[in-house]
C-alpha cells in the first residue's frame, strides 16, 4: 500500500488536471469567440420539418455569388457551396456586396485573385457534419426560440440572415439569426 501522503497528492493532481484543462478550454474558446468582424449572410431554411433537430436550427447559406465570376471560371456548373473551400467576401462589415469563389492551387490561393476581398471565409474540416464546408451551419438556441425561428424561416415574406463572426483566419461562428422583409418584385 502506498503511503497516505503520496495517495493524497495523486488524488489532488488527478482532480486538478481536468479542472485546469476544462477551464483553459473555456478561456480559449472565449478568446477565439471575440475575434473577427460580424457579417450578415443571407440564408434559406431547410424544409421546416428538418429545421429543428434537438435545440438547434439548421440553415443553408444563400451566398450572393456573382454570376459573372463563376462563368468566368469557364464552367457551366452552377456554384455549389458544398464544394467550395474558400470564399472571397466583398463589402463592409456587416453588409456583403458580393461573394466569389477562390480556387485553391496547391493548397494556396492566388494573391492576385484575393485582391479586393474584405475577408476570406474558409471551409472548416474539423467540424461536425452539419457545419462542414461552406454550405450549411447550425445555431444552438432554446427550444421555444428554435420553434419561433423555424416558423420565421418558413415565412416567404421575410428573408433570413445569419449574423456570423468571421475570424481573420477565416473560421466562421454564428452569432444569431435575423430577419428582414423581402422586397417584392
Amino acid at each position, binding site marked *: 500500500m502506498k503511503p497516505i501522503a503520496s495517495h493524497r497528492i495523486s488524488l489532488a493532481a488527478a482532480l486538478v488536471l481536468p*479542472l485546469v484543462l476544462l477551464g483553459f478550454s473555456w478561456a480559449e474558446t472565449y478568446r477565439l469567440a471575440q475575434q473577427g468582424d460580424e457579417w450578415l449572410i443571407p440564408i434559406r431554411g431547410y424544409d421546416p420539418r428538418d429545421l429543428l433537430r434537438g435545440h438547434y436550427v439548421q440553415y443553408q447559406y444563400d451566398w450572393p455569388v456573382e454570376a459573372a465570376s463563376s462563368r468566368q471560371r469557364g464552367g457551366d456548373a452552377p456554384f455549389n457551396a458544398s464544394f467550395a473551400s474558400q470564399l472571397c467576401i466583398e463589402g463592409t462589415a456587416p453588409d456583403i456586396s458580393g461573394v466569389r469563389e477562390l480556387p485553391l492551387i496547391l493548397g494556396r490561393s492566388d494573391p492576385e485573385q484575393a485582391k479586393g476581398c474584405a475577408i476570406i471565409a474558409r471551409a472548416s474540416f474539423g467540424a461536425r457534419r452539419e457545419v462542414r464546408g461552406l454550405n450549411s451551419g447550425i445555431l444552438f438556441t432554446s427550444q421555444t426560440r428554435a420553434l419561433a425561428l423555424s416558423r420565421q424561416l418558413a415565412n416567404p415574406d421575410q428573408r433570413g440572415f445569419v449574423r456570423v463572426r468571421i475570424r481573420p483566419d477565416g473560421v466562421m*461562428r454564428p452569432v444569431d439569426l435575423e430577419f428582414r422583409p423581402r422586397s417584392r418584385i
Partner: protein
Amino acid sequence: MSERQLRAWQDAGLIDAEMAGRIREWEAMHSRPLGLWAIIGLGALAIGLGIVSVVAANWDEIPGETRLAIHFGLMVGLAGLLWRYLPDAAEKNVYFSDGLLFIVAVLGLSFFGHVGQVYQTSSPLWQPLLAWLVIFSPLLLLFGRGWPIAGLWLAGVLGAAWSHADEYGHAWMWGQHAPRPDHPTLYWGLIACPAMAVAAFSALMRDRSGRPGFWSLLEKLAIATILIGLSLVIIAGEWLRGTHDMIGSAAIQSLALIGAAAVIHAVRQTSSGQAAAGLLAVAALLNFAQPLLYSSDGSIRGPWISALFFLTLWGAVAAGALFARWRRFFQVAIALLALRIIILSFELNDDLLGSGAGLILSGAFAMAVAWVTVRISRRYAPVGRNEG
C-alpha cells in the same frame, strides 16, 4: 444470507449457536443494503435530470457565461468533496466513491458540449470524447473501484474510437469534403485495437495496483467486448466488402489480439489468466482466417462458414470457462452455441422448409439441441468461485 438457512444448519448440528451468532454479526456488519442504495441512486439521478431540465427550459433567461460558471462551480465543489471524503469513502462503500467519481466525470464531459452551445462552436463527437479521456483517465483509473467507473471509462474509449471511425464511415454522403483515411488498411486495422490494448493494460496493472478487483473487472469487460465484436464481424462477414485491403486490416487486428494474449499469458499464471490468453489467441486465428477464406476463393460460400466460425469461437469460450471455472461465462457460451446451432439447422434446411419433413426435422433437431444444452450446462457448469 438467510436466517432460515442459518437455523437449519444449526439444527443439523453443522454449526453451533455461538458460531451462528458470529455469522449473523459479521453479515450485519458487511451487508450492503443494495435496495436502499438503488433507491438513493435513482433519486439522485431524477434530481440531476430535473435540474438539467429546469436549466434547459429557462436558458434564455440565464446568460450563457453564468450557466457555464455554475457548471464549473459544481465541478469544483464536487472535486473538493472528493478530495475530502474519497479516501475514507472508498474504504467503506465502493458504490458511494464510484458514484461521486461518476458524477464528476459526466459533468466534465457535458462541459464540452455546454461550452460549444454557449459559443456556437461545433466539433465532431470524437474530439471532446478523446479530450475527456485524456484529462479524466488519471482520476478514473487511479481511484475507480467498481463496475460503474470501469464501465464508464471503457465506454469512453470505445465511444471515441467508434465516433472517429464513424466520420470516415459516411464518406460517401459528403462529397469531396468528407475526409478519407490516408492508409485505409492501417486505419481500419488499428481503429479496432483499443479493446485489445485495454485488456493487456488491465492484466499488466492488476498485480501492480492496490485495487486488483477494478483491473480484473476492466480486463473482463474488454475481453467481453472483443468476443461480442468478433461475433458481430463473423455474423456480418459475408457482407463486409471494404474498399480497402480487408486481409491487411484483419492481420493488424489479429496481431493486436496475439499481443494482448501474450501479455496476459506472461503476467497472469493462474488458470483464469491462461484461459483468457488462449481465448484471445483463438479469436486472433478466427479474425484472420475469415477474410482469408472469403477472398481466396469466390466459390466458398454458404451459411455453414459463418456458423462454423461462430461455433468455434464460442466453443473455445465454453472450453476456457470450463478450464478457468467461470460459471457465468460458461452458461452464456453454451446458450449462444445452442442458439446458433438451431439457426443453422433452419438455414441448411432452406430448400426443405417448404415440405413438412424439413420443418419436422428442424424442430426435432432444435429440441435435441435444447435438451443436450440443458444437460451439459447442469452437468459440467463449473461451480463458481470467488474470482479476484
